[in-house]
């Protein structure tokens, strides 16, 4: 009796481990392969059969990235666009989330949900036309504005969830103590929803940083963000795998670090807000 139960448990655990492995291994393998590419010299990278372990490992590829490809310019562009879009997103999204949560407005919550679901691509053509009209195409400002399409809905959606968890009675208590609704928001609701602000900002950062299509279409030669800049390396120049992998690693690094550091908040935010890649 007991042994069959034990067997079942072991089998269950094994099955779980195997399915985790199957799900995660493609991502891990691709990542490890990229890491391997970035640390090998050019000859090893094109060798057949492929060599996995760099011998000896080299940092030449990384040096190459900084030396040749204007990497720092694109990094700065990405920081401006994503940083700006997250900052403006917070400025707009936090009060909006508060308003929707407090008004219990299912209608507006639904609107935000639709904005979250709609593929970012479908915003692209109208935005492109508008920017053309006002002569903003190819500017950082245009990219920043476009990225708001990603950051604002994420932040609003996450904030709705967090503000709904701040008991109404606390703000009532503030009002009866003499606080105006603005002061109640500022001194009570906002500090209590601070974890939500952090989660919303992290998620918005990740999705905005990774976004690539907006910059491909709207970015100018010097105003691209990192992901599309790398894409350009891939297409137009002779493919040199080593520097490409090194650049790709450098681009993913902030997101990677953030994911590791803020794992718990991200999981909380994703399960509160629903998951969709911009």
């Amino acid at each position, binding site marked *: 009796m007991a042994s069959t139960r034990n067997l079942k448990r072991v089998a269950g655990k094994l099955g779980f481990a195997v399915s985790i492995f199957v799900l995660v291994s493609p991502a891990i393998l691709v990542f490890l392969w990229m890491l391997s590419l970035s640390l090998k010299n050019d000859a090893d990278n094109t060798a057949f059969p492929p060599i996995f372990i760099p011998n000896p490992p080299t940092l030449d590829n990384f040096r190459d990235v900084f030396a040749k490809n204007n990497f720092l310019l694109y990094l700065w562009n990405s920081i401006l666009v994503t940083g700006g879009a997250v900052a403006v997103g917070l400025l707009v999204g936090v009060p909006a989330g508060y308003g929707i949560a407090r008004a219990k407005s299912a209608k507006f919550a639904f609107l935000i949900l639709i904005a979250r679901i709609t593929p970012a691509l479908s915003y692209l053509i109208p935005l492109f036309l508008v920017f053309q009209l006002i002569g903003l195409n190819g500017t950082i400002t245009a990219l920043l504005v476009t990225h708001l399409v990603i950051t604002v809905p994420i932040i609003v959606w996450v904030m709705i969830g967090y503000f709904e968890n701040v008991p109404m009675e606390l703000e009532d*208590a503030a009002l*009866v103590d003499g*606080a105006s609704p603005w002061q109640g928001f500022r*001194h009570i609701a906002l500090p*209590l929803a601070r974890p939500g602000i952090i989660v919303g900002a992290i998620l918005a950062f990740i999705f905005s940083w990774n976004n690539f299509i907006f910059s491909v279409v709207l970015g100018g030669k010097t105003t691209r963000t990192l992901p599309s800049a790398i894409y350009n390396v891939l297409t137009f120049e002779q493919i040199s795998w080593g520097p490409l992998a090194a650049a790709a690693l450098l681009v993913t690094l902030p997101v990677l670090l953030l994911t590791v550091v803020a794992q718990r908040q991200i999981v909380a935010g994703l399960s509160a807000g629903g998951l969709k890649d911009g």
Partner: protein
Amino acid sequence: MAKVEIASLSKRYGENFVVKDLSIEIPQGEFLVLLGPSGCGKTTTLRMIAGFVEPSSGQITLGGRDVTTLPPWKRNTGLVFQSYALFPHLTVDENVAFGLEMRKLPAAERRENVAEALRLVRLEGFGERLPRQLSGGQQQRVALARALAFRPDVLLLDEPLSNLDAKLREEVRVEIRELQQKLGLTTVMVTHDQDEALSMADRLVVMSQGEVRQIGTQRDLYERPADRFVAGFVGRSNFLAGQCEGDGAFISAGGLRMACTAGVRGKGTLALRPEAVSVGPEAAHLDNSFEGVVEYISYLGSVLDVRVRLAPQDRIIVQIANRSGEVLPKMGDTLKVGWPATSGRVFAEES
């Protein structure tokens, strides 16, 4: 502190009256309790005074100031919530100081008032703690201190004791009442707990389904209940169905003729307090005197509740004191019971 005047206050949601035509003047320093079963509109009334619920009609005046249309933050009322609603991210000091900060009091004065408020609720030395580091009773006192710190015109308490355990509740009752008397606070408290209401109030408003049934002191309500509802809600009553003859006589459903207070002729109810009934030989000399069979006895310690069947349809609970050395009735005994005519109050059948 100030006088509170409420004139024909009503609140309607759709066609449904939650509070109906409430008028009362609360003199400065009075402790008024709104008493009634759950859902009768007590909280709504309190929230109208605080400014969270807009009245459908009527007027509220605080110290001569018409506040009917003012928002909560301009009313200067202190409110203690059932859940205390302490700000979890602020220390006790900061919680109590909140109202003062909103009123832009200078820091020195603020510190003084906070210390004073915490001293009043005997929480000196707890200022640095967060609410979650306090017991339920201490949190309740912080809520009280927060509501008092800015010297409100009226103190509002919404079932402030219902989250405390029974023993603590009785202590806190006394504390709040003493504090209220010492500071001369005009206070409106809401509760569904009869004991709590009776032990704390100067005056009570008994409400049912949004309507005021009676306003008066404990004694008014107990000795001269305005209707059957009040007779049943404040203290206990036996209710006997029957026919009122109009001239101080009542014929019960079981056919017993009882002397009672004068009432309207017709179908009605006789209300009789269990403790107003005498038993044994002395019962024979009273206006009403019957013999009945003891059906059930609840031994409650200081008193016994004895259920006596006077007639197949007429049963009453009789409360007798448990004095040492006295022979107590047993189930199945025949017992003489009696009460004076003035103890039996008749109410016409409610439509």
